[in-house]
């Protein structure tokens, strides 16, 4: 019962951390082209549906008058072959002409995203030979730039999808796929895994933060830095717990001895817009809650729950992580 209450609590928190996730409310060039395509298709579909069913209704209900066999055969050929052929040829030409632009490469920073169960490993490759900047569960992009996104996966197939920016692309273990996005608005846009990837597939989301170019560059520079050392007593205690509880076996916090690579990089986790792959807000309470009830919040997750820690210890840990701006 207690678990249920806690899950409901975390769910309440969860509701405060979502951006837009709609195909129709677009913020990227590729998505707005596709939204336009949708409206055209929708109007066409409604007209055709009304014609077809109107004809059927007319035939069976309104005027069941007999038709000559020749006229009937003309109907089959005209309605079944000629009309759809012309319509489809136009439609295919229109839709396929969109494709080259949708698949055009990006320039500037390359974002490499790897799907994990159930979170996102994110690396920014500046293309200048420097080591990639490692982050997780959030993607930041410069507005009005086409950014290349390279996709992979660790164990199982996932799919990368930010509906407001562009269509989705699957992520495979042992095979690299790619796409590019071109945001036209700054803001926060939610993305979610779109290929079933196991027990907590539903809980694998992330936020995409679109920034002005200069803000983006400043942010990249900050993200490149090592973690900030906590100064206050409680977070410092949290830092010690992080070490003594062995969190570093799976997580990296650059600038500390935590260098694990199995879980998300936490160097700047406090500066992210969400926690737990887009499911919790980035508050100290949420950090504490997550650490204590990991498996209840995200079923099947590999990270163990640290339920044996005292309330004060959990709180300290939460404050430490939240302070990793």
């Amino acid at each position, binding site marked *: 019962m207690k678990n249920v209450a806690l*899950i409901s609590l975390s*769910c309440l928190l*969860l*509701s405060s*951390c*979502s951006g837009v*996730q*709609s*195909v129709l409310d677009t913020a990227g060039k590729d*998505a707005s*082209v*596709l939204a336009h*395509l949708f409206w055209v*298709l929708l109007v*066409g*579909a409604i007209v055709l*549906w009304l014609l*077809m069913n109107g004809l*059927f209704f007319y*035939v*069976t209900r309104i005027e069941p008058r007999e038709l000559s*066999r020749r006229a*009937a*055969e003309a*109907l*089959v050929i005209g*309605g*079944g*072959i000629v009309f*759809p052929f012309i319509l*489809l040829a136009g439609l*295919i030409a229109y*839709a*396929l002409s*969109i*494709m080259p632009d*949708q698949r055009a490469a990006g320039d500037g920073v390359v974002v490499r995203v790897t799907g994990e169960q159930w979170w996102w490993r994110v690396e920014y490759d500046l293309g200048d030979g420097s080591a990639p900047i490692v982050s997780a569960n959030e993607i930041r992009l410069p507005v009005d730039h086409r950014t290349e996104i390279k996709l992979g996966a660790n*164990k*199982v197939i996932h799919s990368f999808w930010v509906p407001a920016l*562009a*269509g*989705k*692309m*699957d992520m*495979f*273990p*042992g*095979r690299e*796929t*790619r796409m590019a996005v071109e945001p036209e608005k700054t803001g926060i846009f939610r993305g*979610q*895994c*779109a290929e*079933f990837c*196991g*027990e907590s*597939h*539903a809980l694998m989301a992330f936020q995409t933060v679109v920034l002005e170019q200069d803000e983006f560059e400043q942010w990249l520079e900050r993200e490149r830095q090592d973690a900030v050392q906590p100064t206050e007593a409680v977070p410092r205690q949290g830092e010690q717990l992080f070490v003594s509880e062995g969190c570093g076996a799976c997580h990296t916090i650059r600038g500390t001895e935590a260098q694990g690579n199995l879980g998300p990089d936490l160097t700047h986790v406090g500066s992210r817009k969400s926690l737990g792959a887009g499911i919790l807000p980035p508050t100290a309470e949420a950090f504490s809650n997550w650490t204590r009830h990991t498996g209840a919040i995200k*079923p*099947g997750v590999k990270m163990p729950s640290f339920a044996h820690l005292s309330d004060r210890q959990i709180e300290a840990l939460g404050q430490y992580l939240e302070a990793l701006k």
Partner: protein
Amino acid sequence: MTQSTQNRESSSSGVATYPPTEQMLEEKIDKRTQEKTADRLRKAWETPKGWRYWSAVNNSEVGVWYSLTAFFFMMCAGVLALLMRVQLAVPENDFLSADTFNQFFTMHGSAMMFLFAVPMFEAISILVLPALLGARDMPFPRLSAYGYWCFLIGGIFVMGSILFGVAPNSGWFMYPPLATKAEGVGSDIWLLGLSFIEVASIAAAVELIVGVLKCRPPGMRINLMPLYGWYVLVVGGMILFAFPPLIAGDFLFELERSFDWPFFDPERGGDPMLWQHLFWIFGHPEVYIVFLPSIAIAAMVVPTVAQRPIVGYSWIVLSAVGTGFLSFGLWVHHMFTTGLPSISLGFFTAASEAVVIPTGIQLFAFVATLMVGRVKLNLPMLYIAGALAIFTAGGLTGVMLALAPFDWQVHDTYFVVAHLHYTLFGGMVFPLIAGIYYFYPFFTKKQMSVRLGKIAFWLLFTGFHIAFLPMHLTGLMGMPRRVYTYPSTLGWDWLNMISTVGAFIVAVGFLVFTYDLLRPKGKQPYTPRNPYNAGTLEWSHNIPDEAWGSRSIPYITSRYPLWDQEKIVERMDAGRYYLADAPEGKRETLITTVLDAKPIQVMRVTGPAWITICAAIFTGGAFIFPTFHWYPPAIVSGILAIACVLYWLWTSTAPIPEQKTKDAGLGLNLPIYASGPASAGWWGVWITMLGDSTAFASLIFGFFFYWTAKENFVPSGSDFVLASYLVLGVLSFAVTWATLVGARALNRRGSTKTARNLLLVSALFTIAGTALFCLSVVNSGLEPTSHVYPAIIWAIMVWTVVHTAVGLIMLGYCIAGATFGKLTPEHDADLCNVTLYWHFIIITVVVASLVIGLLPRLL
């Protein structure tokens, strides 16, 4: 005298009496003869009583069990859907756990596809087809019964796993590596349980195809066949070519799960994309396998409602065949988001859109028929109209989805969930219910209630739209499929709540329908014989029902014999036509030629038996025990299954008749025994082997897929299959094949002794060839768990030697037949069929050895 000359003689003696003249048909049969022959016929076709009832094999019994079982599984899968809708009704719900939800959606999809849609088509076809063709039964009744028992056992096994919380939970598409790495027995239950059912489905498809090709009534040329028959032919053919790639995929998949052969593991050279290709090469035709039978039902209902022949019969046939072909070229539209090259996406976009044309032709042909005719609306037509309204909407969203760029957005979202339910409800469920209402008086000679039928219709129709129309928007607002929960801030809450309400209205509609279907109608008077004044043969059946189907098998000259052929029913009843009598007390049906339906044989079909149930139980054991890695009982079950099948074949298949020919009626003397292409069994083998070869081709496709898609498919320094063993193995099989062909020829010429000795030589060389083939791989140092290259070689080797081993059993069967007088110069059907099997196997052997022996050396 050889069999072929005998055939020729009997058909030449038939020339004078076939086709029957009006004069011959005018001749009266006296009442006493009528009664006497009817009694004998009734006795031969009597359905077993009491507990023996379950040994029945007649299509009218098996078809009913089959369809009710499929309907039951549909209800189970529907309950799962309702539970999922409860979970999704509100955000962040904890009614179902994540794992339970995942099991539910996996089982909902799997059960609807494998335990409902395909079996339902086969069930209804088994029930209706013989009647449409004026035949007594399906050509292989025991095979139908065997298929049914396999389906029941496999279905309970797969569906039952949900009660123990161990059901498969990786989605009905079972993508590796998720499904290959899934813990527990869920994935194995899916793979083995459903493979078992797929084998049964293929068996039923083979039987239906043979039924359509060989069991038509005399005179019913292929272009006079009811459209339903054409659809059965097309759908049967699609099952035959679509299921084998999946079976090949299942084979690789289970080898990976059980023995760690890395077909889909990218770390050892495997590729999960191969499964996606094999799955969707099956999965897309599957959609049309589900859809076309319902069009077939509409094609029966519409002319009856219009009281006119269908408009554009040839156009419809061409469209059905065209849809069948096209459906195999569309599978990639399920993989638009996997990063394939733009050129492939362009091609598959165009191919997917092309399907609109044959579908459009079929729909417009129905509309045109209604316009030509004088429409008399009835309840089935109401459901057809509802189906059209739903299906056209699903079809139009299909046109959207087939455009690759649009699919990138809505792929794997609730938009697709809405689309597929619109196509399947409109293209399968509504026409099916229409068909049940339409054929109910034919099945039971009673009526379902029009009032309840209308109530059910409006509940289903409105409930369906309330449930699924909002899902389009849910998907566009970004909700992915297969999520067990969702946050409350994305605007999905109210849409999901509406969908859940709709789902429960649909459920109430189904309850009303089910009540009406199953409520006892004992007091109700029988319906008139042809209640809708339809034109096709199934409405000629007697009231009350008789197990013989057609009292006598008519001579057909029209697509709508009951409309166009005067006195046909009267003459059928009088026993004026063919096979009106069963003087030997045997069940018989007429075999005709494939195109022109000239009668060529009176085939004895099998009667009630328990052996089919035993065979099904042991076949089930052979598939089910490996799920739990209990290999010894699995092997024992497998051996017992083979023993049962052999006993069944030996005791009842193509028995040597007590007389060469018999009077089939109207002065027509036909042989009772046939072998080679004249017999139904030969066609059964031929069609089965087409399916089997498709599975083999899928494995070879796998080899080429790895070769082209993976660099270093053959890692440098790898071992090769041992050429010397392989060459000797192929030569041994060549001897097997040559001696077998020789034995068949010699046997025909009467040299039975020499023929039997040659068969012995053939068997010995089969043993040698099989051993050499195994050794060429086993001794080569290729380790199947190390990399995909040795693994695929092992897989092809295993596939090949299993087939040669089955071929060995067949040779043994023929040797036994020759020894105990079952195989004689005139009665060589078994030998002909085994030779045909080996024609396919020798090709398999040659292709397999070239691919595993030669290609890697060239790479």
